[in-house]
């Protein structure tokens, strides 16, 4: 009788353990599948197809009286045709107008602009100069070189024609076209041309936004937590506040976007698409999360510490700020970093305040127009061009890496400062 009951209890225990292992492995397999599939789609975006052109540039033409490069003069020059004629020189057989158009389609539509920027960044002197520059091939040529376009299907169904394939192949044979590290992806902001598009604009946008978020939310949340733990008298009002803080933590994020639209934009007249407003909205959103974490952390500090401080004549404020808060800091920090990580991944509230936008310039201040990383991923994955697909995958990996390091930081900080009682 006892024996069978022990046996069945043990069997139940084994089963429970097996269920636990099964759930964990299921979660791990799913995570691995996700990361691997995104990784396989995205790793090729680390490279980009470039081609080399040699052009001769008469710098004298662009210099004004003061001896500096003049933007107006540079804008008036037809840089596109300079690149195009260099390309024609590589393929002298191309004469026909339609054929030329087809040839120009294998290089980036921004080639002329990129050349202009290169000339601007290395100022040349002393008249005419020969310059060898690596410029982007078009996204279709890039995808072809990476083997991401199938060329077995009939020509009319393809994004790249037989002629274009032959041209690209010939460039590669002559060693003036190859896949190189995709620096553009990490140094530029959004573009309509996949080969010119990068994530730097959105990374800086996210950083500016999160800075405002933490400056806004952390002090407010800590003050609120200290008040609720130490000063608030238990009663209806405190209960009411408590229930509302907990409710606020569960409010869908889009609601905070609407709030931001009506309060910060309509009432205060703050600018649209600005990291300042984005940060305030995300700050409101993470406020309850940090309050709850801070309260839990403050509560976990043994009351004896505070009582000892009070007993030795410290005021309530001194006890809270000098004794409890430093001990509670690791827990508060962990809560804050988790809240920040959550804010980093949000797009919905940003939609309402105009941060879901096409922005070519890299933001520099808290009021310049900016997007955030998840918004950039969303916008790229919505684009028709195949090359944006791999770029959005790479951007996802980048975002995930960012989140993992933030969470890691939270763990490390907690381990470092944690006190055992």
């Amino acid at each position: 009788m006892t024996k069978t009951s022990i046996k069945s209890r043990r069997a139940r225990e084994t089963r429970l353990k097996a269920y636990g292992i099964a759930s964990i492995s299921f979660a791990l397999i799913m995570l691995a599948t996700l990361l691997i599939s995104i990784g396989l789609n995205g790793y090729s975006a680390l490279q980009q197809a470039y081609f080399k052109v040699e052009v001769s540039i008469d710098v004298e033409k662009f210099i004004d009286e003061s001896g500096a490069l003049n933007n107006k003069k540079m804008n008036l020059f037809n840089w596109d045709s300079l690149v195009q004629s260099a390309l024609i020189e590589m393929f002298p057989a191309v004469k026909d107008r339609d054929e030329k158009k087809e040839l120009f389609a294998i290089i980036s539509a921004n080639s002329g602009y990129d050349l202009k920027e290169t000339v601007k960044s290395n100022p040349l002197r002393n008249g005419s100069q020969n310059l060898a520059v690596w410029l982007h091939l078009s996204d279709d040529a890039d995808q072809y070189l990476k083997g991401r376009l199938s060329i077995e299907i009939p020509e009319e169904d393809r994004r790249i024609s037989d002629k274009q394939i032959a041209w690209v192949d010939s460039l590669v044979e002559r060693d003036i076209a190859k896949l190189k590290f995709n620096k553009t992806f990490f140094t530029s902001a959004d573009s309509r041309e996949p080969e010119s598009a990068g994530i730097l604009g959105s990374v800086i946008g996210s950083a500016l936004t999160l800075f405002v978020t933490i400056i806004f939310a952390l002090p407010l949340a800590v003050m609120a937590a200290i008040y609720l733990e130490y000063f608030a008298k238990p009663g209806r009002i405190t209960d009411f506040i408590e229930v509302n803080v907990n409710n606020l933590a569960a409010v869908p994020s889009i609601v905070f976007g609407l709030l931001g639209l009506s309060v910060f934009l309509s009432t205060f007249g703050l600018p649209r698409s600005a990291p300042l407003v984005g940060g305030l909205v995300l700050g409101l959103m993470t406020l309850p999360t940090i309050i709850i974490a801070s309260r839990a952390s403050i509560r976990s500090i043994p009351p004896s510490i505070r009582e000892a401080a009070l007993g030795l004549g410290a005021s309530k404020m001194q006890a809270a700020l000098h004794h409890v808060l430093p001990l509670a800091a690791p827990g508060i920090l962990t809560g804050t970093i988790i809240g920040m990580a959550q804010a980093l991944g949000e797009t919905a509230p940003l939609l309402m305040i105009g941060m879901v936008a096409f922005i070519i310039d890299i933001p520099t201040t808290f009021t310049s127009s900016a997007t955030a990383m998840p918004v950039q991923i969303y916008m790229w994955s919505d684009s028709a061009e195949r090359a944006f697909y791999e770029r959005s995958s790479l951007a996802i990996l980048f975002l995930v890496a960012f989140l993992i390091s933030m969470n890691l930081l939270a763990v490390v900080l907690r381990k470092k400062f944690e006190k055992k009682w």
Partner: protein
Amino acid sequence: MNNLLKFFTAAIAATVLSTGSLIAREGDQISIVGSSTVFPFSTIVAERFAKNTDFKAPVIESTGTGGGAKLFCAGIGLDHPDVTNASRAMKSSEKETCTANGITPVEYMIGFDGITFSNSNKAQQYSLTKEEIFKAVSAKIMSNGKMVDNGYKRWSDINPSLPSVKIDVLAPPPSSGTRDAFVELVMHDTCKKVYKMSKDDYKASCSALREDGAVTEAGENDNLIIEKLAANQGRFGIFGYSFLDQNKDKVQGSIVNGVAPSMETIADSSYKVSRPLFFYVKKEHVGVVPGLQEFADYFMSLTVSGSPLEAAGLIPKP
């Protein structure tokens, strides 16, 4: 701890001060809102404009035509957008709001966008009237002068000369501008012209699509709709002409009221399920926001055949 406290106090003060001094948008950047259909064209123009001139790149948001008009007409000043894109002409109610706020919208028509009713090109090409499409997709249909639930199961039930194939249509979601235009150009138009209904009546009873399985709502991803049409020959999809143009190897557009969709028929408006695309410039901001007039002129200079906008699917004015 005290240091930490001081740091935060200083940081808050700094944030508040910078907020106070930089209250509005930096004035040298054009702000554009509006239609998601015009968005891809607008972004192409904006990027080329920024790269070829000294002006700063415009900021473009895809808010939908109605949302864009609301923001645009809200007021004058740098905290309101300078340009709104629209996949239909501005409504008179919107114009009234604009006028009431002292805004004069200047209209620019950039070209056309056709809406196609397409199926796999392995199946036969259908020739339909707007009324027949209405009967296939509408939740309510006209029967003896009354609107009743739609019971048509097969195309041959609607018109015996059509094949006996189950009605199966993929429609864009309600958030899409294509859906709005389809409802207006096909469904409302049928109720207005064929059934002679009043505006309130057709808005009330001719706006809903079937929910009995004959019409399925597809996501915003038009590429996915193309794949589903290629996989199932009995199925139809509703999407913009640019997607048909890029996928002619897989799908074909049905003939509507005797005209097949093509660049030419949409441009000369003989294909009736097409809409003009616009953008509106705030006249009061011209001269205040640098490059606004230049941007508008640059946009118009690209709305010709052979331009990158045509390659992206815009149908230029004839």
